[in-house]
């Protein structure tokens, strides 16, 4: 892959301007091309299927793992299984992300299946960004699957963002939480043109004192269509909250289906969903500060998805 293109895509999906400090694995056009491990974080190629195991030693503190994926080869359909084993008491940041540069007519696709095994009292911040660009007419398809298991007292914060260029996406995330475990998900999506985006969250609050907060903010422009499914199952004394907030612009459409299932008398679950266009008074307020209507809309959307 062209080095300049590779660098540009890495900036887009992971804010990487140079090779990062810490563990690193770059997958380009379906193969691992660069890898770096540390004393505490090992990255091992899987033998039975495409993908890697990322093994983080117990007690690892303040370290990061970057595993970007880039596709530029026309017509490529890439599928990868990445498993993260986060040892007891570790505290790490994991940055994944996938970028597609499409210059041809054929569809390009990346399906990343990420499984997280988060040990007792471990803490993970997981940042995932999806992006596509290019002059080609081929569809750019990203179907990420995220499977999370959090042991007792473990914590995971997942920030997942898809702002631009992806034609179609189905994003499946499922999680099982043990006693006292916490899961926080912040999803940001913007679709335009005839793009489609489907998000499916399923969270099982199995442990006593487990907590989940699943929040999605999205903007649907053009004639794009989004579906937001979020199911929280409270199977123990637990707290769960899911929220979908969507802004409609032009002819964008959004279908939000939050659902809660309480299977325990001590489960406390809340869902909220709000869909609508930008409030006229918000635009007027910013116009009274000297912004044009277009600038006002841009500020509101950027702030909303920040």
């Amino acid at each position: 892959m062209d080095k300049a293109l590779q660098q540009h895509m890495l900036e887009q999906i992971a804010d990487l301007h140079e090779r990062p400090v810490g563990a690193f694995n770059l997958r380009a056009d379906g193969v691992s091309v660069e890898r770096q491990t540390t004393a505490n974080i090992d990255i091992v190629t899987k033998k039975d299927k495409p993908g890697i195991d990322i093994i983080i030693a117990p007690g690892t503190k303040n370290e990061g793992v970057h595993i970007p994926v880039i596709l530029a080869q026309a017509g490529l359909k890439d599928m990868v299984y990445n498993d993260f084993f986060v040892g007891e008491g570790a505290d790490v940041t994991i940055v994944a992300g996938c970028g597609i540069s499409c210059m041809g007519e054929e569809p390009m696709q990346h399906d990343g299946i990420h499984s997280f095994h988060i040990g007792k009292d471990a803490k993970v911040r997981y940042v995932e960004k999806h992006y596509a660009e290019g002059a080609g007419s081929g569809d750019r398809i990203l179907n990420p699957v995220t499977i999370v298991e959090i042991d007792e007292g473990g914590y995971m914060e997942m920030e997942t963002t898809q702002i631009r260029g992806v034609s179609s996406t189905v994003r499946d995330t499922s999680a099982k939480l043990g006693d006292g475990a916490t899961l926080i998900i912040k999803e940001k999506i913007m679709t335009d043109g005839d793009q489609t985006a489907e998000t499916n969250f399923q969270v099982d609050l199995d442990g006593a004192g487990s907590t989940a907060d699943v929040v999605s903010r999205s903007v649907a422009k053009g004639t794009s269509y989004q579906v937001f499914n979020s199911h929280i199952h409270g199977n123990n004394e637990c707290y769960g909250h899911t929220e979908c907030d969507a802004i409609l612009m032009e002819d964008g459409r959004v279908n939000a289906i939050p659902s809660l299932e309480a299977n325990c008398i001590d489960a406390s679950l809340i869902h909220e969903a709000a869909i609508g266009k930008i409030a006229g008074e918000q635009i007027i307020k910013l116009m009274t500060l000297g912004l044009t209507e277009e600038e006002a809309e841009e500020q509101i959307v950027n702030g909303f998805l920040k």
Partner: protein
Amino acid sequence: MLELKDINFQVEEDAKDKEILKHIDLTIEDGFVAITGPNGGGKSTLAKVIAGVIKPTSGRIIFDGTDITDMTITERAQAGISFAFQQPVRFKGLTVFDLIKLAHGTDLSLSEACTFLSDVGLCARDYVNREVNASLSGGELKRIEIAMIIARGTKLSIFDEPEAGIDLWSFNNLIRVFENMQEKTHGSIIIISHQERILNIADRIIVLANGEVANQGTRDEILPTLLDSEAACSVIMEKLAP
């Protein structure tokens, strides 16, 4: 200086024309001008007409010699008109700092933004990075709204009932804010208010009732009439009503 020439505003209600503003002729010089009068008298509508939020049915608006009647809200804002809403707007995602920066119009350091917040009695450190969302109280929003107007520093500032909901903060501070603004901009400050303490600092008072200018003049001329008149009584009764 702002001139309103024969401003009329009608809306259709139950298939009938309802006159909200009737033949408003006003000249607003530099200094403090308070607009008062009973609820439903047209005060907020007049403020919106000046800011360009509402287009009058007829009449002209002249600001510093330029006819701004056909200007958009944006153009009027850029020409030097600021408008603090009676009910400030909430924004999911935008922070207090974002709004102060947008109001100021140029890049602003965090510490500069904090000065504007301190001016309205908010501990800047606690507020500057907060989202302007439902977590802020009505009183906090009102003060942030005022801070935005201070940050703009324009020739004409209109405040629609700025004192509402700021009971925890003293009136004296609010009045000091207006005085400091006046000192800096040497422009006009129009304050819509029922509060005697605000009317007390006005250079001129305009009484708007039933969409018309019922009375206008200097504070010394108007204030005594308000305090004994039936109009004042009705204002007070409305304010006291649950």
